[in-house]
């Protein structure tokens, strides 16, 4: 069967999960203990960035493979094409975050508050990059450019199906040009977007490795989801020619990039730990002391589990083992993004709560002036105060993912799958005129 049909039963299940996700989002909006609905907004940002990133990475992998003359993936390349199409809803959801930025619905970003920036030399210094205009235009233009490349590649790939002969490579040559042009653009712009979307949540902090590290996280999540989708499609009787040989190579990618992710994670950690500069260590100190389960668990499920399970040859060829590992690793990288975003949002929210109380109590201009004069010492006091109160506190939805977070994630996942399965339905699963199709059919790794 080369034509995928999206059965109504599957639609119902996915719609039910999307409903669950919407319900969880609504609950976290109305039952939020944090100021400015920080729990709701951080959940929204977390899942939006995570799933948009998976769409971006699938486009990136595809273009890298086309440029590298890779052939083995062609049998299931329609899955990646479908994933990449999720960039469009991704941009819409990022549009909601942008809208919230301008209207002040959320306080995810410390740098978005002009009053905070005015009294903070670090934020003021960074304000040429961390500002609303850059965030908005950057997101619209850059994700827009990704969507342009995605649509171009997809339309060329679909046009190739309609060719009369397999010997016509003219469209494939065009795809190679599109792919090669996208590679540097995608690589550099994704870094800039990650700084804006994720790293600027901790507005004072920065790391030059961060973009690499979080892209690697997307990459592994994308591979895990690909394995799950391919195995599911096979279990439904599609993709008959995708064999354990292809699964083996996907498993190798999952294994290798789990190690690559760990390498980057550790490189970032060790340099900051060794240099011991206060502005940098604050990031890991917060996570180690206030989020210890998340912090160490992150390494356990994203490094030790895939490393030891996927080390052997035969585990990468077994459908059950691969599904098991992919589920763990997919959840693990969602968890990784949770840990990137939540502590910073909580910190900003605690400042917000603190500042509001302060404002109500003060009311006198004189006090305000003296506060501004000694703001350096005051600020340090604030941080110490926040750290002291948080160290012992369990903040639901932040310290660990709660039921609402899991439900939101399932909702977004269902949305992602619903959208991508709709895309899969639009074209044959077998790109019958791809010049590398024959190579993919005869792919052997052992």
């Amino acid at each position, binding site marked *: 069967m080369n034509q995928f049909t999206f059965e109504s039963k599957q639609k119902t299940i996915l719609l039910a999960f999307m409903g669950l996700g919407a319900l969880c989002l609504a609950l976290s909006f109305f039952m939020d203990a944090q100021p400015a609905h920080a729990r709701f907004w951080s959940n929204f940002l977390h899942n939006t960035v995570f799933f948009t990133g998976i769409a971006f990475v699938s486009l990136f992998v595809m273009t890298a493979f086309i440029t590298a003359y890779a052939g083995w993936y062609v049998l299931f390349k329609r899955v990646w094409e479908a994933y990449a199409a999720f960039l469009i809803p991704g941009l819409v959801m990022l549009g909601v975050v942008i809208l919230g930025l301008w209207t002040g619905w959320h306080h995810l970003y410390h740098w978005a508050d002009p009053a905070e920036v005015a009294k903070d030399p670090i934020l003021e210094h960074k304000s040429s990059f961390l500002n609303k205009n850059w965030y908005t235009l950057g997101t619209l233009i850059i994700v827009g450019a990704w969507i342009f490349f995605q649509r171009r590649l997809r339309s060329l790939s679909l046009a190739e199906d309609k060719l009369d002969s397999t010997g016509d490579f003219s469209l494939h040559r065009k795809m190679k040009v599109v792919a090669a042009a996208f590679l540097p653009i995608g690589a550099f712009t994704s870094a800039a977007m990650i700084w804006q979307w994720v790293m600027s949540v901790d507005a004072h902090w920065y790391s030059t490795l961060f973009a690499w590290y979080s892209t690697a996280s997307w990459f592994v999540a994308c591979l895990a989801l690909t394995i799950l989708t391919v195995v599911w499609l096979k279990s439904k009787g599609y993709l008959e020619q995708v064999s354990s040989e292809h699964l083996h190579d996907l498993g190798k990618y999952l294994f290798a990039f789990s190690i690559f992710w760990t390498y980057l994670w*550790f490189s970032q*950690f*060790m340099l900051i*730990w*060794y240099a*011991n500069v206060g502005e940098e260590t604050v990031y890991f100190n917060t996570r180690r002391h206030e989020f210890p389960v998340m912090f160490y668990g992150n390494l356990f499920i994203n490094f030790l589990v895939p490393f030891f399970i996927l*080390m052997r*040859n035969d585990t990468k060829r077994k459908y059950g083992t691969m599904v098991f590992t992919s589920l763990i690793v997919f959840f693990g990288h969602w968890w990784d993004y949770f840990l990137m975003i939540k502590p910073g949002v909580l910190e900003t929210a605690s400042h917000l709560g603190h500042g509001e109380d302060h404002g109500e109590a003060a009311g006198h201009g004189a006090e305000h002036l003296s506060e501004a004069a000694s703001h350096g010492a005051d600020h340090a006091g604030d941080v110490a105060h926040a750290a002291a109160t948080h160290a012992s506190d369990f903040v639901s939805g932040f310290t660990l993912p709660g039921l609402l977070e899991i439900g939101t994630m399932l909702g977004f996942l269902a949305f992602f799958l619903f959208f991508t399965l709709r895309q899969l339905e639009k074209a044959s699963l077998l790109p019958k005129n791809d010049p590398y199709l024959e190579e993919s059919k005869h792919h*052997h790794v*052992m």
Partner: protein
Amino acid sequence: MKDQNTDVLYGLYDDEQDLLKAVKEAKDQHLEIMDVFTPFPVHGLDPLLGLAESRLHIAGFVYGAIGCLFGFGFMTWVFTRDWPIIFGGKPYFSAPAFIPVTFELTVLFASVGMVVTFYTICGLWPGVKNPTLDDRITDDKFCIAFNASGAEDSEVDKLKGFFSGTGASEVNMKTI
């Protein structure tokens, strides 16, 4: 056994596809292949010959684990017991700083250990006498070899018939 000379009847093929077909054919005719030589690894040859999967990687894992524990343990002993020095205000036991060296030692132990094990299993050491059937099997020829020691003429004829039937470009007898 080592000193005893072996008569080997071998055929050379020009293409790995011919070789794979010939190996299948030999299996069907129940001919006992002594060895197959190829200039590069041929996909699908190992299962056809019924060769068991190499267990070298298990040895590699063990060597790697030993290297990992040795590296980490040694540094821990040096920096906490034997010669404690404070570097950059860090505690004596600074696990993150030990990780890169531990990683390197894991790789070193695993790779050197596997090389030594592989050479030992293959009986390779400096100065070893290594008789080759034909120099061209290290270049572009694919070879199937049969042990023809003490074989009767009829058996040799049967093997020669097998070679000509499967498209061998050359058949030779050699004593090694």
